[in-house]
């Protein structure tokens, strides 16, 4: 049986992989996918704590899962808006490489 710590470790590992993707990659679409991975890793933590925090009535704490539901909703909205911004950016600059987007560099 997997314990709470193992779930938390997997969640931290996924978050770290997503962070590495955000730092290393130069393609803005892949950066965006890595952000999604980080969000999903955080929701694994919430579900694990929800399941391991048994309430007095013998059931999991469903507040955590409601929170995950809201996170998924916000992530869907975020992806829609973010991809629309990427398309607008591509129309204006003809690039999705973040190294080329340096007009605000001091």
């Amino acid at each position, binding site marked *: 049986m997997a314990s709470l710590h193992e779930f938390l470790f*997997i969640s931290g590992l996924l978050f770290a992989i997503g962070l590495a993707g955000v730092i290393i990659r130069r393609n803005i*679409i892949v950066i965006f996918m890595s952000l999604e991975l980080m969000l999903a890793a955080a929701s*694994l933590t919430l579900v694990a704590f929800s399941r391991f925090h*048994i309430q007095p009535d013998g059931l999991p704490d469903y507040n955590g899962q*409601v929170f995950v539901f809201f996170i998924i909703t916000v992530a869907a909205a975020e992806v829609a808006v973010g*991809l629309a911004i990427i398309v607008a950016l591509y129309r204006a600059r003809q690039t999705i490489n973040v190294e080329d987007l340096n007009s605000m560099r001091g």
Partner: protein
Amino acid sequence: MHILAFYLFAILAVVGGILLVAFRNPVSSALAMVLSFIGLAGLFIGLNAYFVGIVQILVYAGAIMVLFIFIIMLLDLNDEKPVKFKSSTVLAGVVIPLLLVVQVLGVIQSHNQGEAGEFKEITAETMKKSAQEHYLRTDENGEPLPLLEQSAIYKSLAHETAPKLPDTNLIGHAIFKGYNFPLQIMGALLLVATIGVVVLSKRSAKKAPSAS
């Protein structure tokens, strides 16, 4: 949750994440992302969060992946030249997440999870025991009152052939009783996002002066 299933889905999620970062082609990255999210959904279902697991597959592996693939197709990025990664960036991208993992490991090692961290199956027996321990719905002899026996959750768990946790019922109950106002705000948020996307992706007739 069986330990083998846990390791299978955990490895699936982690390998999918690593491939997402490692693949050069954005389409391959999107498919690796789906692999990772399927692994995560398996972990959710192993944690008795059936509703969240299914929503994860429907929304992430269905809608969001299609959106990513569609945008990649729309931008037509097949002539992307191979980019050279700066060694300082790669170093930062390896060291900072590694520090994070070491920190998580340190916290996990230093904290003894005890009995609370063990995975315990939820059955009708554990539900009855918990109700007795916490003096909920029990009479003076410690027997559960008919209220517990009659509750739909208890009946569903006590079903002889296929006992299952009525997870969706309970989440619906939690959302609509405790989080009704946030749910309506979510509806407004989705509407605002929809309108925002339509406005953003509308090609204006005359070119904006700031766009070069």
